[in-house]
C-alpha cells in the first residue's frame, strides 16, 4: 500500500477513521472543517492568482505607459535645450570677442535673439577674470563680478554650463546658459552668458501635455530639491519639492508617492542630461481613459462577491455532503451492530445448547443415582442416619432439578421447533395471554390497558410460541413495576407486511449499560426476592421471535419505564426457516 503524505491522511482522517471507531460528532466536525478548507483553497487560489495576474498586467501596462511618457518628455526638453545651445553658439561664432564686448553690437545680437526666442532675458560677455564686460538686457548688470558664480566656473571647466533656476541679481526666476570660448588674440578664455526666463520651461512642458490627471515639472538635482518649473501640486518655480530624488541617474525611475493630495500617485523621475534638472511626472493611475482606482475597486468587488458566493455554496455543499456521509455511516453502523448482535446471540445460543447437551448426560447419571439411593432408602429398614441421608439426597435431587430446568430451557432456545402455522387474530391472542396474568396483576395493583388496533389483518404464525413470547414480556413488565403501576399493550399494523406490538410499563426502567445485554443468556436483574430469574426468558423470547421471522427491540428510560416492541410478519415463509433449522440441527 502506498503511504499517503501526512496532510492527505489528515484531510481524509474523517473518512478513514470511521472504519476504526464509532462515529463521533467531533470526527464529522473535523472532516467538515477540513473539507471546507480544501474546497475554499481550491476555489480561492485560482481566483486570487487570476486577480493578481490581471492586476499586475494592468499595472505593468500602466507603468510602461508612464515610462514612455517620461522618456518622451525628457527628450523634448533635452531637444529644446540643445537647440538653444546651438543657436547661442552659432550666434557667438559669427562675431569676435572684440565685436561682442562692444555694447551696440551685443544689443543687436540680443534683439535678434529676443525676436526669435522671447524667453531670452539678457546676454552678457564675461572676461577671463569673471567680470561682465558687456551686457544687453533690462537690468543694470554691467561690470558685475561672476568669478565665483557657477555659471562662470562651470562653463570655464566644461565648455557649456546650464544653471539651476534662481532669482540671482535679476530677482525673477531664470536659469543661465553659459558657453566658454577661447580668445585667440588675447590667448584667454571668455564666457558668453545668457539668462532664460524660467516660464520658458513651463511653456515647453505645457506643450508636452501629459494629460489631465498628470503633473509634470522639473526639479533641481539637490538634496533638498527646488521646483524648476510650475507644478500643479507643489506650486511655482523655486518652491520646495518635499521628496528626495532617486540615486539612479540613468533612465526612468518609477515609484509611488503620497503627495499633498493625500493619495498615492505613481511617480516617474528622469534626469535630463547636461543639466542640473530632473523631470518628475506624477500620474493618478490613468490608463485608456479609465480610472485606476475604479479598476481596483471593481476588481476587489468582483473578488469579494465571488468569494462570498463561493463560501456560501461551499458551506452548504460540505454540510450536505458530510450530513449524507454521516447518515450513511450511522445507518451502516446500526446495521452492523444489529448483525453483530444477532450473530452474537446465535453463537451464544449454539454454545449454550452444546454445553447444556454435554451437561445433561452427567446430570442424568446424578439424577438416576440419587433416585436409586432414594429408592433404596425407601425400601431399607431404619438405621441411624437414614433420615439425614434422605434429606441430603433430597437436596441433591432438588439441585439437579434446578440444573435440569436451566439446561432444558437453554436447549429450548436452539431447539428445532415443529412450527404449526395457523391463522391468528393477534388481538384475541393478547386477551388470552392477559387472562393468564389477570390474577397476578390484580394482586399487585397493576392496571393492564389494552390498546388494540382496529381491523388488524389475521397473521400466520405459531400460537403456542406467540403465547410464550407475550407471556414472558407481560410477566417481565409486571415484575419491572413490582407494585401499583400500569402496563399498556398496544397493537397496530406497521406496514403492508407486518404488525407491531408494544408492551409498555411504567416501571423502574433499564439503564443504558444493561439494555445492551438483556437479550443475552443468564443476564438477569431479578437477582433477589421470591422471583429469582434464570436470565433465559428474554434470550428464549428473542430466539423464538427470530424463528418466527420477526424482530424485537427495546427502549427504556430509567425512572420512566420500558417499551418492548415486537414486529411480526403477517405472512412468513416459515417452512423454509424450519427446514434451515432442521438441516443445521441434524447430526447434533
Amino acid at each position, binding site marked *: 500500500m502506498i503511504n499517503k503524505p501526512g496532510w492527505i491522511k489528515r484531510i481524509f482522517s474523517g473518512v478513514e477513521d470511521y472504519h476504526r471507531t464509532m462515529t463521533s460528532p467531533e470526527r464529522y466536525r473535523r472532516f467538515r472543517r477540513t473539507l471546507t478548507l480544501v474546497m475554499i483553497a481550491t476555489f480561492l487560489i485560482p481566483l486570487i492568482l487570476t486577480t493578481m495576474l490581471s492586476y499586475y498586467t494592468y499595472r505593468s501596462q500602466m507603468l510602461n505607459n508612464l515610462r514612455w511618457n517620461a522618456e518622451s518628455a525628457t527628450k523634448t526638453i533635452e531637444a529644446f535645450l540643445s537647440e538653444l545651445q546651438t543657436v547661442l553658439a552659432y550666434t557667438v561664432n559669427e562675431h569676435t570677442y572684440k565685436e561682442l564686448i562692444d555694447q551696440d553690437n551685443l544689443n543687436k545680437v540680443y534683439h535678434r535673439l529676443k525676436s526669435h526666442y522671447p524667453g531670452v532675458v539678457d546676454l552678457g560677455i564675461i572676461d577671463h577674470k569673471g567680470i561682465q564686460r558687456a551686457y544687453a538686457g533690462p537690468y543694470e548688470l554691467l561690470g558685475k563680478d561672476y568669478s565665483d558664480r557657477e555659471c562662470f566656473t562651470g562653463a570655464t571647466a566644461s565648455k557649456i554650463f546650464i544653471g539651476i533656476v534662481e532669482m540671482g541679481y535679476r530677482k525673477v526666476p531664470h536659469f543661465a546658459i553659459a558657453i566658454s570660448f577661447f580668445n585667440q588674440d588675447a590667448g584667454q578664455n571668455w564666457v558668453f552668458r545668457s539668462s532664460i526666463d524660467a516660464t520658458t520651461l513651463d511653456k515647453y512642458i505645457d506643450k508636452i501635455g501629459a494629460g489631465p490627471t498628470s503633473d509634470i515639472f522639473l526639479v533641481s538635482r539637490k538634496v533638498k530639491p527646488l521646483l524648476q518649473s510650475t507644478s500643479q501640486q507643489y506650486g511655482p518655480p523655486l518652491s520646495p519639492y518635499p521628496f528626495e530624488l532617486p540615486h539612479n541617474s540613468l533612465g526612468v525611475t518609477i515609484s509611488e508617492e503620497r503627495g499633498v493630495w493625500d493619495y498615492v500617485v505613481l511617480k516617474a523621475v528622469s534626469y535630463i542630461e547636461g543639466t542640473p534638472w530632473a523631470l518628475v511626472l506624477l500620474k493618478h493611475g490613468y490608463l485608456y481613459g479609465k480610472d485606476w482606482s475604479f479598476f481596483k475597486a471593481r476588481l476587489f468587488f468582483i473578488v469579494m462577491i465571488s468569494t462570498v458566493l463561493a463560501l456560501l455554496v461551499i458551506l452548504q455543499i460540505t454540510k450536505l455532503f458530510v450530513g449524507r456521509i454521516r447518515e450513511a455511516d450511522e445507518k451502516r453502523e446500526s446495521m452492523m451492530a444489529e448483525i453483530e448482535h444477532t450473530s452474537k446471540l446465535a453463537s451464544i445460543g449454539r454454545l449454550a445448547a452444546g454445553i447444556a447437551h454435554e451437561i445433561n*448426560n452427567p*446430570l*442424568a447419571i446424578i439424577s*438416576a443415582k440419587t433416585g436409586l439411593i432414594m429408592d433404596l432408602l425407601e425400601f431399607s429398614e431404619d438405621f441411624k442416619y437414614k433420615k439425614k441421608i434422605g434429606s441430603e439426597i433430597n437436596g441433591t435431587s432438588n439441585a439437579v432439578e434446578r440444573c435440569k430446568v436451566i439446561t*432444558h430451557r437453554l436447549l429450548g432456545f436452539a431447539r428445532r421447533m*415443529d412450527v404449526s402455522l395457523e391463522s391468528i387474530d393477534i388481538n384475541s391472542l393478547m386477551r388470552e395471554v392477559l387472562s393468564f396474568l389477570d390474577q397476578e396483576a390484580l394482586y399487585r395493583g397493576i392496571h393492564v390497558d389494552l390498546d388494540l388496533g382496529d381491523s388488524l389483518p389475521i397473521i400466520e404464525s405459531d400460537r403456542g410460541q406467540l403465547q410464550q413470547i407475550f407471556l414472558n414480556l407481560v410477566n417481565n413488565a409486571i415484575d419491572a413495576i413490582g407494585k401499583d403501576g400500569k402496563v399498556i399493550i398496544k397493537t397496530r399494523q406497521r406496514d403492508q407486511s407486518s404488525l407491531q406490538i408494544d408492551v409498555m410499563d411504567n416501571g423502574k426502567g433499564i439503564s443504558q449499560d444493561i439494555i445492551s445485554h438483556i437479550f443475552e443468556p443468564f443476564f438477569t436483574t431479578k437477582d433477589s426476592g421470591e422471583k429469582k430469574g434464570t436470565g433465559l426468558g428474554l434470550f428464549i423470547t428473542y430466539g423464538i421471535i427470530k424463528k418466527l421471522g420477526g424482530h424485537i427491540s427495546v427502549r427504556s428510560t430509567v425512572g420512566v419505564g420500558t417499551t418492548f416492541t415486537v414486529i411480526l410478519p403477517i405472512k412468513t415463509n416459515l417452512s423454509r426457516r424450519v427446514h434451515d433449522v432442521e438441516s443445521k440441527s441434524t447430526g447434533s
Partner: protein
Amino acid sequence: MMSKVKVLVVDDEIEFATTLAERLNIRGFETTACFCTEDALALIHAKNIPDVVLLDLKMPRMDGMETLEEIKKYNPTIEVIMLTGHGGGIPLVGADRKKFSPFDCIMKPADIHELTLKINQAMAKRQASLNKGEGT
C-alpha cells in the same frame, strides 16, 4: 398374576443405564441394560423380546433412530421410548423414519415417575397391538 413388563435400557452411559435399570427393577419392571445398539439388537434377535425399549438417541456407530428402525422392522409391536440429552427432539428426516416413530421422546434427566408412566402407557399400546394380532 400378570407377568412383569420387560424393559430394555440402551444407553452408552453405563452408569446411567445400570442405575436406571435398577430403579425400574425396584418398581417391578424386568429390566435389562445394554450399552451399545449392537448388543441390544443381538439380544432382540436372540428372541429376548422386550415390551418397551428405552433408547438413547445419540450413540456411537449406530444412532438411536437407526436402531429404532431396526427394532421396528424386526417387531413393530415393541414400543420404543427415546431418551435424548439434547433439545433437538427427534430429527424426522426422510419418509421412512416417519414410518417408524417412537412411542414418545423424553428429555434427560428424566423424572422416574414420568418414565414409569410412559412405560406403562407404551406397554398398554403394545398389549393392544398384540391383541390385534400384529407382530410375531
